[in-house]
């Protein structure tokens, strides 16, 4: 057995993760060809690197197939029911910051709060005969948020990409999506509701509560966490 560490397999998120571990004396690297998802860990023994899509890391942690994983808090909360029982947040990594927000067309001068959105949704349903559509891929987080806030007469429509374009294309009236700077929202003539922040997310190191650990694994894990100074 060895302790398995899951990290994002490509892009900025992978590079920043490698940098974060590197700054703590643990070198993570991809091995083999550019296209092969294999990795190596130097600077500590007993750790195996598993390269995964950031979106799959929550599931792998919950299944106990990896012991540690780096992914966004948004993905963990969206994908894992009762996430605190399945994983433990060890350390925010200080990058990959993104806010999950509710945004509406900027020309909706009458809608600035969730209270306005709720009233507009009621009027919209009466006029158009269907519930106001909010495009998102974060169904669970957005639904729970809107339920807690008492917003009614809306429906979530699935959008796995280019969500900011759905309003212009008339497949949704509003959106709930991740944004870091808000530039893409503005470019698409959308604005964020004043109280429309669903969740603040960033890349975070998680520990699985489900992964089997023998005596050696626990020693390796303790040594790693000490090196990372997250315990």
């Amino acid at each position, binding site marked *: 057995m060895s302790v398995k560490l899951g990290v994002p397999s490509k892009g900025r998120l992978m590079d920043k993760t490698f940098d974060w571990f590197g700054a703590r004396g643990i070198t993570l690297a991809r091995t083999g060809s550019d296209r092969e998802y294999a990795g190596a860990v130097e600077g500590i023994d007993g750790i195996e690197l598993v390269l995964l899509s950031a979106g799959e890391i929550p599931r792998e942690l919950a299944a106990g197939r990896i012991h540690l994983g780096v992914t966004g808090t948004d993905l963990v909360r969206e994908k894992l029911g009762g996430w605190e029982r399945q994983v433990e947040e060890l350390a925010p990594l200080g990058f990959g910051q993104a806010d999950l927000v509710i945004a509406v067309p900027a020309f909706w001068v009458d809608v600035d709060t969730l209270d306005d959105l709720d009233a507009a949704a009621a009027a*919209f349903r009466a006029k158009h005969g269907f519930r106001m559509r909010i495009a998102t891929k974060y169904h669970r987080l957005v639904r729970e948020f809107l*339920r807690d806030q008492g917003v009614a007469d809306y429906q979530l429509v699935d959008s796995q990409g280019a969500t900011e374009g759905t309003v212009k294309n*008339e497949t949704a009236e509003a959106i709930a999506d991740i944004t870091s700077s808000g530039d893409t929202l503005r470019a698409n003539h959308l604005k964020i509701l004043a109280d429309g922040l669903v969740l603040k997310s960033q890349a975070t190191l998680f520990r699985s509560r489900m992964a089997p650990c023998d005596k050696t694994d626990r020693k390796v894990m303790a040594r790693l966490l000490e090196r990372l100074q997250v315990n």
Partner: protein
Amino acid sequence: MIMRTGIKAEAARLKALFEAAGARPVEAPVLLPAEALLDLYGEDIRARAYTTSDTLRGEQMLRPDFTVPVVQMHMADGAEPARYTYAGEVFRRQEDDAERANEYVQVGYEVFERDNPAAADAEVFALIQSVLNGLPLRAATGDIGLLTAAVSGLNTTERRKAALMRHIWRPRRFRALMDRFSGRAEMPPTRAALLANADPMAAAAPVIGLRGLDEIEARIAALREDAAAPPISEGEVVLMDALLSVRETVPYALEQLRDLAVDMPAIAPAVERLKARAGAMAARGVDVERLDFEASYGRTQMEYYDGFVFGFHAETRPDLPPVATGGRYDALTRMLGRGGEIPAVGGVVRPGLMQMLREGRE
């Protein structure tokens, strides 16, 4: 471990009791068209029911309860008056609490009858109570009709009343609306700025999407109208709070409500209905003197009930969901009835929980 066969046998026994009380046994499909449920409950139902789909029939849901299919069946071809019973599994998605069952058996009794709603309410409550006899349960009752009567009697604009009515089942938003309409909460600064602006559309961003300029202008006009309307008076807010916090045994609750009705005449008919119901329940042998009444009962859980509501809760097991629930749902028959409507009241029991409580005592 409670065996499935034991629960099935208990369900059959309960169903036979309901049949003996005059109900016709009916079956309902397990897969229901998602559209009807979504229209009724809104997006929240997706958190409670399992959704599946195929390319021919589109989205369908594993039935989260029997009420909707039974009402649809009755509205399509039912004779009046009618009493129905059913027994079968319902499916509830669980996202947070792994201890809660996502599949369990319900046995129900539903009455569709135009005459004498007090008697029908009492019939359903007394029957459900009788099959639960001997279990350590506490009954709670309420009446959503009191709240809707109080809202429609407020001395304020129709638009405000409609907004409050829409959120009777969402106490938090209801409270926020009351605070704003009564001037207890300040207007958000962005709204004040919007209303102060003579031509708010002048500098607006490009028009995109299906919600048009006309809709925005209509809402701004409504907001201006609302800003000009006088606030709901402090006295009315205090009365509404007093009504929502009535929590007594039925005779004392009636006394308090009659006192409130002096200043809130709009609730007087609803109080009379409560009194008539209490009389009908006593006539059926229910110990009304010791029965609890909570004016806010059923506001967070029971979205389609609009009159009498009740639930039976395990006294020693506050972690368990209610063992039986029920109530009146006149508006549901109107929404699902395609033009028709009929007053209706019903209740369901969970034989699995009944068995668990029995075994826990042995």
